[in-house]
């Protein structure tokens, strides 16, 4: 199917299957995807002459993530998924009795965990990724307002930039949590590196933080399940402008449609 042109930034291979699976959609998402394809071919044929917007992005779409950023997310999600699934089979008696193979599970768990920071580190080569990290890092006044309205469950739209305060907190918490899991995991992996108090303490932290991370990841996936537009942005790199105006109004204003 026709693909939208990728912005050059990022560095990892453009053209690598980001369109995979877009044709199989049913329901409302499928309809939206159909228009993406149509718009893409329309803009592809018209872009040379009209240059309706930079990069040939049609006016009803916004470039949200580069190819590099989407692969950082995919690789991190895959590694996190492997770590969580192997952890469940190591930890929950019912699942452990089902598959056994403890040593193999331990090896897979250890390596998925150790490799988990790598996609993010590789992503630092991408300018767009670094810019988004900066956006995630900084809390403006509207982020605090967003947060207080979310906590108090005030109905109605909440103002946010490219990422809302919840996403910012999730990202920064996960960054710290992955590092803690990595450190405590290595202490358990190589028992002769540290005295026993540290090993027991690390096991304690690793166990409890794992439960916390599990709950957060389930919540993260739950939000994605309820938001097809957000999922599409991570799958294709483009977000619907109406969705952006509703969910990330300040970011949408940064990128006005051509001709306004």
């Amino acid at each position, binding site marked *: 199917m026709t693909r939208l042109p990728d912005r050059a930034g990022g560095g990892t291979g453009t053209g690598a299957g980001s369109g995979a699976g877009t044709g199989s959609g049913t329901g409302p998402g499928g309809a939206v995807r159909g228009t993406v394809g149509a718009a893409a071919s329309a803009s592809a044929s018209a872009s040379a002459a009209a240059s309706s917007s930079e990069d040939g992005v049609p006016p009803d779409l916004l470039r949200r993530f580069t190819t590099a950023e989407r692969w950082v997310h995919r690789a991190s999600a895959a590694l996190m998924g492997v770590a969580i699934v192997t952890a469940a089979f190591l930890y*929950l*008696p019912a699942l*452990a*009795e*089902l*598959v*056994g*193979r*403890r*040593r193999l599970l331990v090896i897979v768990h250890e390596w998925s965990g150790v490799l988990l920071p790598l996609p993010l580190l590789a992503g630092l080569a991408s300018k767009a990724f670094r*810019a988004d990290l*900066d*956006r*995630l*890092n*900084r*809390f*403006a*006044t*509207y*982020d605090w307002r967003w947060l207080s309205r979310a906590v108090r469950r005030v109905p109605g739209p909440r103002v946010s*930039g*490219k*990422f809302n305060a919840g996403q*910012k*907190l999730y*990202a*920064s*918490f996960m*960054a*710290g*949590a992955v*590092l*803690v899991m990595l*450190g*405590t995991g290595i*202490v358990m992996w190589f*028992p*002769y590196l540290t005295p*026993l*108090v*540290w*090993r*027991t*303490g*690390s*096991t*304690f*932290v690793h*166990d*409890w*933080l794992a*439960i916390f991370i599990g709950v957060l990841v389930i919540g993260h996936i739950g939000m994605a399940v309820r938001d097809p537009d957000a999922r599409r942005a991570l799958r294709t790199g483009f977000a619907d402008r109406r969705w952006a105006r509703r969910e990330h109004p*300040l*970011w949408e*204003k*940064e990128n006005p449609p051509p001709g306004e």
Partner: protein
Amino acid sequence: MAKDGRGAPVGRRVMLGVLGLGVLGAATGSYVQNSYDNLLAQISSRDPTGVTGLLPGGGGFRFYSVSESIPHRSDQDYKLTVDGLVDRPGSYSLADLHAMPSTRLVRDVQCVTGWRVPHYAWTGVKLSDLLDKAGVQPGAKALRFTCFDGVYTESLTLDQARRPDMLAAYRMDDKPVTAAHGGPVRLYAAPMYFYKSAKWLSGITVTDHVEPGYWEHYGYDVDAWVGKSNGRDDDPTS
């Protein structure tokens, strides 16, 4: 209009905060875990739902197996072979083992990964009785244990195996050993970390040297005395 990427670096603070808490937790977790274990033991003894068993350190045994599934062998089909450097190699059915003098020990169980189950009853045949029946030949130094999961192995020196707290156990907690716990018969090496107590025991071979067992190939100590090996200082169990 406020632009993205301005404002306090809250993200970095959250990340460093989590990191700091993690280090603090690792430093103090050992003490927290102890008091928490005591509390949890009290709660779980009155917990009919079993939910507390899912919490970290939630008491009781954890299931560890290196084979692909739980091997099952019925009480009728079970056989324990004794061979190697012995005068009378043989094989014992479960009924044969039941007919031999039994020993009941109540001891703590200590896993090398940290969990401990207090005051647990084990019943079985002393390895020394099996060895005497088979007649150990001169030059024998050690025992190699094989298991009918086809994967796990263990070892003991002859002197260790002759201790009165080394059993071929067919009862845990005064009930037959279940398949998940290594039944019908498993090794019970009371004074050692629990990886020594091989599940699904099917063979004892008397050898002239110690052949390290499964986990010992991956760095666990061969002489696995509780509190004096594997870099741990747990209270001895026997």
